[in-house]
C-alpha cells in the first residue's frame, strides 16, 4: 500500500491516485480487478454462512416445536430495530461510495462515521439480548437451563441462535473496522473519480453483513 504522503494533492481537492501496478493497462482495469476479487471473497462468505443456514433448516425440521417456542422468547422489537439499523447503515455506506466516487471525501467520511455508529448500535442491542439470554439460561447444549421451553430441542435452537448471530456479530466488527479504515482515508481526501475501490469494497463487505441479517431476522425472530 502506497503511503498517502507521497501522493500530491490535485487542483480538484483530492490526492492523485496511487501509481498503477505495472501489470494493469489502465486504472479502470485495476479497479475492476479489485472489485472482482472482492466479489470472489463474498462468494466464499456466502458459502460460510450456508453451513449455518443448512444447520438451521435441518434442526428446525427435527425440532419444529422447540424452534417456534424459542422464537417467541426472542424480542421482536429489538430484532426489528437491529434490522432497520443495518438497512440504514447500508444506505449510508452506499451514499458514502457515491460521494467518494465523486471526490466528495468529507461527505463520505461523515456518512461512513454514521455507518460505523449504527454498527456499534447494532452490537449494543445484540449485547442486551445476549445478557438476557445468559440470565435466563437460554444457552446452547449442556448449558441450557431455560424452563419456559418445554419442547425437546431447546438447547439445539440456542446452538443455532448463538452461532449464527455470533458469527454475524463478528462480521459486523470486521466490517466496522474496514469502514473506519476507509473513513480515515476519506478524511485524508484519498479518493477521486478514478480511485475509490477501497470504499467500494469495504461497502460491499458491509452490504453482505446486511444480507445475512436480512435472512437471519425472520428465521430467528419471526417464523
Amino acid at each position, binding site marked *: 500500500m502506497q503511503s498517502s504522503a507521497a501522493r500530491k494533492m490535485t487542483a480538484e481537492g483530492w490526492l492523485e491516485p496511487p501509481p498503477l501496478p505495472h501489470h494493469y493497462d489502465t486504472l*479502470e482495469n485495476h479497479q*475492476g480487478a479489485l*472489485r*472482482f476479487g472482492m*466479489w*470472489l471473497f*463474498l*462468494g*466464499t462468505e*456466502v*458459502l460460510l454462512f*450456508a453451513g449455518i*443456514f*443448512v444447520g438451521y*433448516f*435441518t434442526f428446525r*425440521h*427435527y*425440532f*419444529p*416445536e422447540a424452534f*417456534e417456542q424459542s422464537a417467541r422468547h426472542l424480542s*421482536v422489537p429489538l430484532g*426489528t430495530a437491529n*434490522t*432497520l439499523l443495518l*438497512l*440504514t447503515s*447500508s*444506505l449510508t*455506506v*452506499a*451514499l458514502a461510495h*457515491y460521494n467518494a*466516487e465523486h471526490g466528495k471525501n468529507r461527505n463520505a467520511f461523515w456518512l461512513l462515521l454514521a455507518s460505523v455508529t449504527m454498527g456499534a448500535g447494532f452490537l449494543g442491542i445484540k449485547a442486551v439480548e445476549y445478557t438476557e439470554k445468559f440470565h435466563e439460561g437460554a444457552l446452547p*447444549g*449442556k448449558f*441450557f437451563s431455560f424452563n419456559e421451553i*418445554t*419442547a*425437546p*430441542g*431447546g*438447547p*439445539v435452537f440456542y446452538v443455532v441462535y448463538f452461532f449464527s448471530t455470533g458469527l454475524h456479530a463478528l462480521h459486523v466488527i470486521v466490517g466496522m473496522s474496514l469502514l473506519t479504515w476507509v473513513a480515515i482515508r476519506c478524511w485524508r481526501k484519498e479518493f477521486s*473519480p*478514478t480511485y475509490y475501490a477501497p470504499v*467500494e469494497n469495504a*461497502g*460491499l463487505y458491509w*452490504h453482505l453483513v*446486511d*444480507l445475512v441479517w*436480512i*435472512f437471519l*431476522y*425472520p*428465521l430467528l425472530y*419471526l*417464523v
Partner: protein
Amino acid sequence: MATTTSHAAATHAKHETGPGRLVLNWLVLCGLTFATFGFSQVHMSPSMHLAAALSISTVKVVLVVLIFMHLWHGEGINRIVFVTSFVFLLLLMFFVMADAATRFPLSNSRIPSMPVVDQKMMPTGMPPGMSSVRQGHSDGPGASSGEAGKK
C-alpha cells in the same frame, strides 16, 4: 489529463446509481421489513410463515445486491460469481433437506415421547430418534451386522 477525466466521466454516467435511487431503495427495504413483521402476525400455518418470510427476504436481498451493491450496472463476471455462490448454497440446502426429510421417516413423531432422554443425549450428538428407529428396524442379522460395521 483532460481525456482521462472525460473518459472517467463518461464511464460514470453509464454506471451511476444516484442518491435518490439509493434512498428510494432504502425506503422500499424498510417497508418490506415491516411487511415481514406483519406477515408473521397473521394467522397461517408454520410452513406458510416460512415461505412468506423467505420470499420477502429474497426480494430484499435482490434489491440490496442490485442497487446498493451495484450489480445492476456491474460487470457480468461479478454477477456470475455471486449467482454461482447462491446456486451452490441452494444445492447444499436442497440435498441436506431432502436427506433429512426422507432418511428417518418416523423420527419426528417419536421425539415428543422421549423428551427427557433426548435432551440428555443431545451433547453426545446423537441425531433425534435415531436410536429408537434403529432398534425398530434391526430385526434381522443383516441389519445388526451392518450397524456393527459402522462402529
